């Protein structure tokens, strides 16, 4: 957000501070899925 010449609030765009959040979300999906697959494989081996 910013303000125009009349002092009104104006949308400027998405905040680039969110880049690490979306990158982290991608990393989280990979890590959680990898752990899940490892646990599932261990569970099958133990049966």
């Amino acid at each position, binding site marked *: 957000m910013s303000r125009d010449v009349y002092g009104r609030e104006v949308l400027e*765009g*998405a905040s680039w501070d969110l880049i690490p959040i*979306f990158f982290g979300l991608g990393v989280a999906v*990979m890590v959680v899925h990898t752990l899940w697959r490892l646990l599932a494989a261990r569970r099958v081996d133990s049966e």
Partner: protein
Amino acid sequence: MVDKLVRHAGPDRLIHWLIAASVLVLLATGFLPILGIEFNWVAIHWWTGVVLTAAVLVHLLRVLIARKRGPILPGPRDLGDALAVARKNFRRDAPTPPLPGKYSVSQKLIHLAFAIVVLAAIATGGMMMVKVDTPWWERNPYWISDGAWGIVYVVHGFSALFLITLVMTHVYFALRPEKALYLRAMISGWITRPDYLREHDPERWRVER
């Protein structure tokens, strides 16, 4: 001699890789300057956007005119499949989930997510090109109000942010060893008959040849 079955025709693979390369260039030219790597990115960005738009339009025309639309769009039956997969993941004694047709539920969902996000980025990116001098027109920053431009920038920005997550997720699953047959199919076009019979229900995906 392994019996090979066509999963992705040549034009579909070409469009896939063209879209993939375009999206990677667009992400790089969009985000690297924000991360402090300065270069003359605007022309590369919008020209690549034009290439992406053309590739998506050709893809849509091929799907809408020349071929069936069904296989990759999620349908009611996919909800049952998703629940069956979830049950199998959380309960050892749950029945084995049914085999999918050409695409699994997760493949359909990530395609849908890419479709929404890329189409939003293309629509807003196309609007933003009005602010850029091109061979076809001179820039006009006053085409719509500042408030409307703000909405365009927000949608374009969030599309780009979601694309970071989607691309990472897509590449990760494409590189998983158990998904190697799908990566190979997107490169070479074919899957083997044993893979087809192990991973797919022939009643739900009838291979033409």
